[in-house]
């Protein structure tokens, strides 16, 4: 899923400082699953903003709602009768949400309430980790299911580098050196020789380096 963090309240307060009527829109997709932008979080944000404004003596009106997903126009369309009535609309979805909303309702001002971070999963309740960098050319099978593109700080295909120490990456001692794990796993499985196989330089054109991407499935699109 796409993992995000809620922006600090102060930042959101500043975004909507001059608005008198606000709508907070949650998303039932990834951001609900990573406990950052579902209905509960939308209600909490709305309450926090309301309390803050009341405290400052500038009360406002604020409503909250949630969409099935903010990355499909059909769901965005459900807001048709609503969006025009607000000074500001805050999206709690990933970066896709505010953009789809802006595209559908050009007159309305939208604000993001979360910082979208990475593709990952919950390693335990409350802790999410990055697993995929969306590079466009998956090579995980070469590394026994451990992706060095997403999980090595340098995205090395032939690691580890000299910055690997006691299983940790030199950038911070709470970052695991994925290459340490890859080598260990290969050794345990008796497949260390796999790493002798030469990997050609990665073609980064399928990643962000090739510019904005799109995916066209002709059998669906036609």
């Amino acid at each position: 899923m796409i993992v995000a963090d809620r922006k600090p309240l102060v930042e959101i307060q500043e975004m909507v400082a001059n608005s008198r009527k606000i709508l907070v829109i949650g998303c039932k997709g990834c951001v609900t699953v990573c406990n950052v932008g579902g209905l509960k979080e939308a209600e909490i944000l709305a309450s926090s903003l309301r309390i803050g404004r009341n405290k400052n003596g500038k009360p406002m009106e604020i409503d909250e709602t949630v969409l099935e997903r903010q990355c499909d126009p059909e769901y965005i369309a459900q807001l048709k009768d609503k969006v025009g009535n607000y000074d500001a609309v805050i999206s709690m979805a990933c970066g896709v949400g505010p953009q789809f909303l802006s595209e559908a309702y050009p007159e309305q001002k939208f604000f993001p309430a979360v910082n979208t971070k990475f593709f990952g999963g919950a390693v335990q309740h409350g802790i999410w980790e990055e697993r995929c960098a969306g590079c466009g050319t998956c090579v995980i099978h070469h590394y026994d299911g451990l992706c060095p593109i997403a999980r090595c700080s340098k995205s090395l295909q032939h690691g580890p580098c000299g910055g690997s120490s006691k299983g940790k990456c030199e950038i911070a001692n709470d970052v695991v050196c994925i290459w340490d794990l890859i080598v260990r796993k290969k050794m345990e499985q008796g497949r260390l020789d796999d790493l002798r196989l030469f990997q050609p330089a990665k073609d980064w054109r399928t990643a962000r380096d090739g510019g904005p991407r799109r995916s066209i499935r002709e059998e669906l699109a036609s």
Partner: protein
Amino acid sequence: MTLAEKRKLGSVLVVGAGVAGIQASLDMANSGFYVHLVDRSPSVGGIMAQLDKTFPTNDCAMCVISPFLVEVGRHLNIHVIPCSELERLDGEKGDFKATIVNHPRYIDTEKCTGCGQCRQVCPVVAINEFNCGLDLRKATYIPYPQAVPLAYAIDRNACIGCGMCEKVCLAGAVTYDDKTKITELEVGSVILAPGGEMYDPKEADSWSYSHPNVVTSLEFERILSASGPYRGHLMRPYDREEPEKIAWLQCVGSRDINRAKNSHCSSVCCMYAIKQTMIAKEHSAHELDTAIFYMDMRTYGKDFDKYYSRAKEERGVRFIRSRVHSIEPVENGNLRLRYVKESGESVEEIFNMVVLSVGFKPSSGVETIAKKLGLTLNEQHFFRTGDIRPVATSRDGVYVCGVSHGPKDIPQSVMEASAAASVATSDLSSARWSATRTPQLPPETDFSKMVPRIGVFVCNCGINIGGVADVPAIREYAKTLPHVVHVEDNLFTCSQDTQERMKQVIREKNINRVVVASCSPRTHEPLFQETIREAGLNKYLFEMANIRDQNTWVHKNNPDLATAKAKDLVRMAVAKAEYIEPLHQVKLDVKPAVLIVGGGVAGMEAALGAAEQGFQAYLVEKTDTLGGMAHQLRKTWQGEDIPAYLERLIKDVTNHSKIQIFLNTKPVHFTGTIGSFTTTLNDIHTGNPNGIIEHGAAILATGGREYRPEGYQYGNRPDVMTHLDLDQAMKDTPATVMNADTIVFIQCVGSRNSDRPYCSRVCCTHTLKNAIELKKIKPGMNIFVMYRDVRSYGFRESLYQEARALGVHFIRFDPENPPQMNIAENNILTITVTDHILQRPIVISPDLVVLAAAVLPNENKELFELFKVPVNAEGFLVEAHAKLRPVDFGSEGLFLAGLAHYPKSIDESIAQARAAVSRAVTIVSKDGIMVGGVVAAVNPDRCAVCCTCVRACPYGIPFIGNEGHAVIQQAECHGCGVCVSECPGKAITLQHFTDQQLIAKTRALFYQPAMNE
């Protein structure tokens, strides 16, 4: 009359209402028997109620036991008879006549509302026994605030007869002319749980117990307790100074035949002393130095060794292996201890306070009861019991549990209590539900779609509330609140006559929501719910405002503010009441059968127990034989013959018409909820189905095994063996063993190390038993036992004494320096160990080395995942609560027994198996289980299948169903609300605590009339 025609009674008698008596009573009452629960004291609870915290979880003892007290007090089928004793018992098993002496209490428990006015006016003070004499109470008293029954008593030894209490008692409950009465009860069987008492250190003067700063461990519990004499503030009695150094002396009155004449080990003191050091450190504002002086650290129970390590390594508790002879008072209230270090150096140390870790002795009632009932006592004057029938006394139909037949901790007492409950009722199963009472209730009126009509009852609680807050003003205020159609105030809302009046008013005024503003829902909500239910209201159409405990009791000095706060609380309760909905519990059918997985002793005892109770038992075993580990054992620790017992048990199980045995079988599919499970069984070899069975409960008794040691040349040499190898050799080729002139036993092989940080509990006893047997056959044999701590807990200590008397040599070693084995070139084996007295290595050339190998749980990952039961880091099954639910799993309807839970001796396995039966029978004996009420409900439309609830639930109940949303079974939900607060999609609601209801309540709290009007 033939045996078959003999009368069987459906009621039972329990003597002693400590934690064991309470558990036995609840189990029996919940499985169809009427229980008379007799206790000498004015209230139930026993010693556990006096404890501050419980080991090894440091849970608050009162918080844990309190719900059990309330349930006993309110149970329709438990008749609590306080201030009473069993005088005689006539008749026989199935049909006894018990004569009970009821001592006068001088306050009628039926009329007393527990308001406490009598205590406030009582001019006499007496010693407060509940706080171990550390403070005073009045002559009119209640032992402790949570006491059940919640009624006062008058201590006539202290009472001066002034009559003040009678004058102020508005309930008219004081009866000065109360007299001793005799009552007779007809019961089918009797369970004795009179418990134990703590050793009184006054018996010997070397401990200087008369010094105020020398306290017993029970006194120290009260000192630590928030409800104790110092309100939980750690102070020493002499000058109320905060101590900086405290010493604990172990084995005071235990393992002592010199000063105390108690040869047994009291089993619990090592653990409670460790607990007290840790809790004392938490209570101390400054660095507190704590030292425990001990002989052997006996932390032999589940998670006990980890607790010990934590105290030593993380909390810096000092453990000093030395038995201190005497305590010398010095200046400033301090105390001097002289002790000898292990190095032989003599040390003097001054402490601010000394705690005597006093041991158990049998309650004074034990000897009296034994005389009156003709029961046999053991050498230590506890009830005598055997190993194979661990809860049976020498009289048929009379059973025991708890400390009265041997020192033990709370979970062991609770297990035995359940075991006694199951054994005591198995012969009475034909009389099940014959003596019990069921409430007769009118049908519920349907108020749906009707406007709320709220009735508010404001309680004066004598003068508890009315003496502080202005009750008439609260009453008049309540009349102004929305939807309120009736308001009245009562002297005691909980009194019998007010309850009747409440029912009448509800009917007359068509009230459909009731609010009571009085005391605590903890004690009184069930009572009021029953009352409104009797008036035809759903019991959830009720809301309570606690204007006593949380208001007038704490704001005595501010009557005006207390009145204002009471109005706030009433307004909030009324606001919530507007939105409360009736909740309907659904009755689920129960399959009267029990599945037992594992055909060892625990499994077979469980199957037999269930069958004897009249229920179908399905016994599933993965191998082709029944018996498990017990086939390899010879004798119990008391010398009872295990092979003969095992043969008889297998025969009984095989021949019982209600037991169906599945050998070579494993469960492969398991579904359902409490009362109605379905399990598919497959042949373990062919994988073909053996059957699909339906059952109301399941017991996992999947057993354990002996560790195969690595090291010590085990497996390479015939002269190195484990205990079970030795037992086998003694059976098959005794000569090979008896030829040996020197034998070394090495303890803790594979236990108490970093891989397995637990004590295997049985190995010390096993070693002692074998050493004694060998010594008796061949007195000239040299036997060396190399140990870390000898853990011969309870009466097993007698084995240790006997072994020493027979000349067995005990050499203690440190884990850092374990015995080393050397094989010389000529193949001669030697053991080198550092002797702790000589402080130098000694070399022994044994003919035989016996390794006391650890006990491991059997690995059953798939099976445990199938039943979704939790396993700890060592692979043992995890019970629902370490203290009071030792055989239950967190998931309802599933139970555990035997080695799969933790290493234990055969008598303990039998008791646990029988306990599991008792717990299972509380389910399968009912024709239906009521589910629902205050439980979580999922709205599938909102569910994002994020798994948050699955991860957050402390009981592991929610799962993502095939339907594509989270599912929370009503029958399994505990109603704690954790998932509700965590759900990011707001898909889960806790019924009776909905957002709408709680928001209405908080809005009412902040409602300011001035702004709105």
